[in-house]
């Protein structure tokens, strides 16, 4: 048993230099009760690591409540940070080091299998000698449970130390912990201080000084007491980089696109997009409107879009459901609209803070009648930025709704990427209010493409009434079968035109074919591609492709699929397991992308999907790849 609960100060002196463990990458977590600031600590650590030249991916560990009861496994709140010498594209498998503010939140990570068998645990030691005997007992029981693994447990007197300079350590432990990490990973204290100054920019100088004091205290404690340091080599990029989370990238993308109105209603995990915009949008000539509900948010965005520059709304699954009718109106009236959906677990209120890719079919089809719209999905933080710019342009050119499907993983994940070189052409141009030629029809569809120029209120001679009722080219209400057939064709044709402009997806691995092709979409790209690399290194014949356009689908898929013996999607949404009771190939409910690909390509696309309420781990995907290939081999033999 590798359990060591000795307080290291007793047996180690600072005289002996610590052993330095050099690794190409390392994954760590910091967990606390909600409100103790583990997230802030993790965010700062992630940002500083990126700034120092590590590849970084961070994932928030978030309970759904603001302050759930303390010292409960369900209340665990914090961050996972994976750092590497090269680019890091996903959160990895298990963590090698964890800092925990109490043993209960630590247990939650242990029970979820988040910790590697030989993980180093730095845990607050206050609870073992707590005056409350129940707490002491819980601590002892936890140690017994943790002893079933080969963890190295290091007890850290966080509270005791913090009390030496601060009377309310509950609010400052996170900075002490940040100091521990700064020592272990040799992070620049100066850069951390800059980040602290930014994080507390709305607070007083006293608050800053207090936090910096605690940071140094943690650093010095670690220096005096720890016998190891971890080195993950950094490298400076030739290109300038920026580091941010997906929601910040979406908001910055919206600014870069020149859109001037965002209407939204608070919903997790989308809301922080609006927090960002609320601070800066007016400077950019924009309005962030917090509407009375999700429906009104869609209506306000449509009204603004109709009257000028393309506007957008930001939501998550339950909000998307409420916006359905208005989205249909935008499609029917050919009013450009960008809808950003930061997906979470569903159905209903589901898993508000957790990642899922369950809105794909709703984004594509949730609508009475035929309502073709464009659906795209960014797969990295960088793509979050660019997807909004693309969405704005597509909405305007094709006069329709463009859905951007992000998710909780991208929303809170932090990753560095090349700093965008901003272009004026990304921006929406000012609406042209010049008179339209007499008798111009508001839906003057080009009968080949379905495209028609848009008339905006204020333009002399252009007056007409848009309507969600079936209408002809003059926007006159018309119920005749020929009229509805033609207008439906025109709205649908636009998607075909766009599809013809897209290029076939590139294949990672072996483009000429092989045993298995994995198809993914959205935030799973990094985990899937890492898994494919690992599986190929093990000799497995597997490749992958990742779709950005879900509607229209990227071209050439049926042809690509034919090169592989088996095609399977990997997604974070629900599907029946083929081996489950009652499940047959006929009644099996499949992953959402698998469903779509089967319909669109007539290929027998399989799937491996999970809804764990956390991002997929590349190791789990490697296992899935092996079993998908084995299954295929068994089927053939």
């Amino acid at each position, binding site marked *: 048993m590798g359990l060591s609960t000795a307080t290291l100060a007793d047996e180690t002196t600072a005289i002996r230099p610590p052993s330095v463990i050099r690794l190409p990458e390392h994954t760590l977590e910091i967990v606390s009760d909600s409100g103790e600031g583990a997230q802030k600590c993790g965010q700062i650590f992630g940002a500083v690591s*990126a*700034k120092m*030249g590590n590849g970084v991916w961070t994932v928030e560990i978030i309970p759904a409540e603001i302050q759930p009861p303390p010292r409960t496994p369900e209340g665990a709140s914090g961050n996972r940070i994976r750092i590497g010498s090269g680019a890091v594209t996903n959160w990895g498998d298990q963590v090698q080091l964890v800092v925990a503010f109490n043993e209960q939140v630590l247990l939650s990570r242990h029970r979820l299998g988040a910790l590697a068998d030989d993980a180093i645990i730095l845990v607050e030691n206050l609870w073992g000698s707590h005056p409350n005997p129940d707490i002491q007992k819980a601590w002892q029981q936890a140690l017994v449970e943790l002893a079933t693994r080969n963890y190295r447990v290091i007890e850290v007197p966080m509270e005791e130390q913090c009390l030496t300079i601060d009377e309310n350590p509950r609010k400052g432990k996170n900075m002490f912990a940040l100091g521990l990490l700064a020592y272990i990973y040799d992070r620049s204290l100066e850069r951390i201080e800059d980040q602290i100054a*930014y994080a507390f920019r709305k607070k007083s100088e006293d608050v800053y000084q207090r936090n910096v004091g605690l940071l140094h205290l943690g650093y010095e404690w670690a220096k005096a007491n720890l016998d190891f340091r971890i080195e993950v080599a950094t490298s400076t*990029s030739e290109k*300038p*980089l*920026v*580091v941010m989370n997906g929601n*910040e990238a979406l908001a*910055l993308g919206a*600014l*870069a696109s*020149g859109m*001037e*109105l965002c*209407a939204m209603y608070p919903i997790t995990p989308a809301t922080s997009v609006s927090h960002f915009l609320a601070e800066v*949008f007016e*400077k*950019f*000539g*924009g*309005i962030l*409107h917090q509407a*009375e*509900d999700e429906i*009104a*948010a869609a*209506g*306000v*965005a*449509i*009204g*603004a*879009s*109709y*009257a*000028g*520059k393309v*506007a957008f709304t930001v939501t998550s699954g339950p909000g998307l459901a409420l916006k359905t*009718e*208005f989205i249909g109106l935008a499609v029917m009236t050919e009013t450009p609209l960008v809808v950003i959906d930061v997906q979470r677990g569903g159905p209903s209120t589901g898993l508000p803070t957790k990642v899922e890719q369950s809105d794909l079919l709703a984004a594509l089809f949730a609508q009475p009648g035929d309502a073709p719209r464009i659906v795209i999905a960014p797969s990295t933080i960088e793509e979050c930025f660019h997807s909004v710019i693309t969405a704005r342009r597509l909405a305007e050119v094709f006069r329709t709704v463009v859905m951007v499907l992000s998710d909780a993983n991208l929303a809170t994940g932090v990753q*560095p990427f090349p*700093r965008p070189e*901003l*272009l*004026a052409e990304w*921006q929406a141009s000012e609406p042209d209010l010049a008179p339209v030629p007499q008798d111009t029809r508001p839906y003057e569809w080009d009968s080949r493409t379905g495209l028609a120029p848009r008339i905006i*209120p*204020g333009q*002399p*001679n*252009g*007056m*007409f*009434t848009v*309507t*969600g*009722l079936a209408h002809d080219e003059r926007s006159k*209400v018309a119920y005749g079968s020929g009229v509805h057939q033609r207008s439906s064709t025109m709205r649908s044709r636009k998607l075909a035109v766009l599809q013809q402009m897209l290029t076939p997806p590139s294949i990672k691995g072996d483009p000429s074919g092989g045993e298995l092709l994995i198809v993914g979409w959205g935030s799973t790209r990094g985990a899937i591609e890492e898994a494919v690399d690992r599986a190929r290194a093990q000799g497995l014949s597997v490749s992958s492709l990742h779709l950005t356009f879900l509607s229209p689908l990227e071209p050439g898929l049926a042809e690509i699929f034919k090169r592989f013996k088996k095609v399977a999607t990997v997604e974070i949404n629900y599907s029946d397991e083929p081996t489950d009771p009652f499940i047959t190939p006929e009644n099996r409910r499949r992953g959402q992308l698998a469903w779509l690909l089967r319909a669109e390509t007539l290929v027998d696309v399989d799937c491996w999907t999970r809804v764990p309420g956390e991002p997929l781990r590349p190791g789990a995907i490697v296992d899935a790849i092996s079993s998908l290939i084995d299954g295929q081999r068994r089927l053939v033999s």
Partner: protein
Amino acid sequence: MTDFSCATLGCAVPVDDDHEYVLGDYEGPVARWCPGCGDHSILTSVEKLLVAEQLKPEQTMFVSGIGCSSRFPHYLKTYGFHGVHGRALPVATGIKLHRPDLNVFVVMGDGDCCSIGAAHWVHAIRYNMNMVALLLDNSIYGLTKKQTSPTTPQGFKTNTQPFGSFLPPLNPLTTMLGTTNVSFVAQTAEWIPAHLYATLRAAYRHRGLAFVRILQRCPMYTVSLYERAVKDPSLTELLVHDDGVLTPELDAIYRERRAHDPADINAARQLADDTDRIRLGVFFRDERRPCYDEIRRPTKITASERIALLDKELDRYAV
């Protein structure tokens, strides 16, 4: 009237040519409402207002929801937005926020505004944006064929409550007068064109959201509702005041009059709450209340200014 007209607020484009707009500049195709429908009279009064105020058709916007009355924009030659049921106000909010230069009118029915759209109604009153909102209240769902609406009188038989409407009707006036930041509430009736027109004009010239409930008959389903009132003017009381509406041409017919100062919200609430008699006029008016669209008016910037600003934002995230 008032100095706070839309024109002085800069939301109407000043007349830059000598073109004089006439009725034909606003009249759309023949309205397809039933003969005898109150909507016809309201459309006529609105057209008259557009001529009187010389509003540029291309700078004027009618936004509606769904229902008989929401066909309104189709019968005008201005810009129109015929959207979804109950949601005219959010669309109008978006239009006005992004394009404060447009004159925005919102047309809703009683089911549209007071039932399916009630959430937006309350908040639109609080936003108090520079628009005119017309509630065409015929106390019934007409287009879907005679169902109980929130304003259907108790006991009135409909297809969904065939033994009579179960509950007392919702009072739109007291609802609005109880809402924070309300700035203009008036009531008029489609069968008294002079009063209707005077009320619309006062509404248009108001600074803030001017909300007008127009009592209206449906010739198919609620013709009996105001039969007595139409025949007997003594059943109707006109609220008169220099700051409200004055209709001297009606003096001889409508003799029941009450001096009511629209600045007095407590009196307005009492008068609105007492539904024993029909009261027409401006119940409440206060132009000092904050207007959301005036507060939220960002400065326009150029593409290159935007790039420079965004570059600065990116510095915050630079590695």
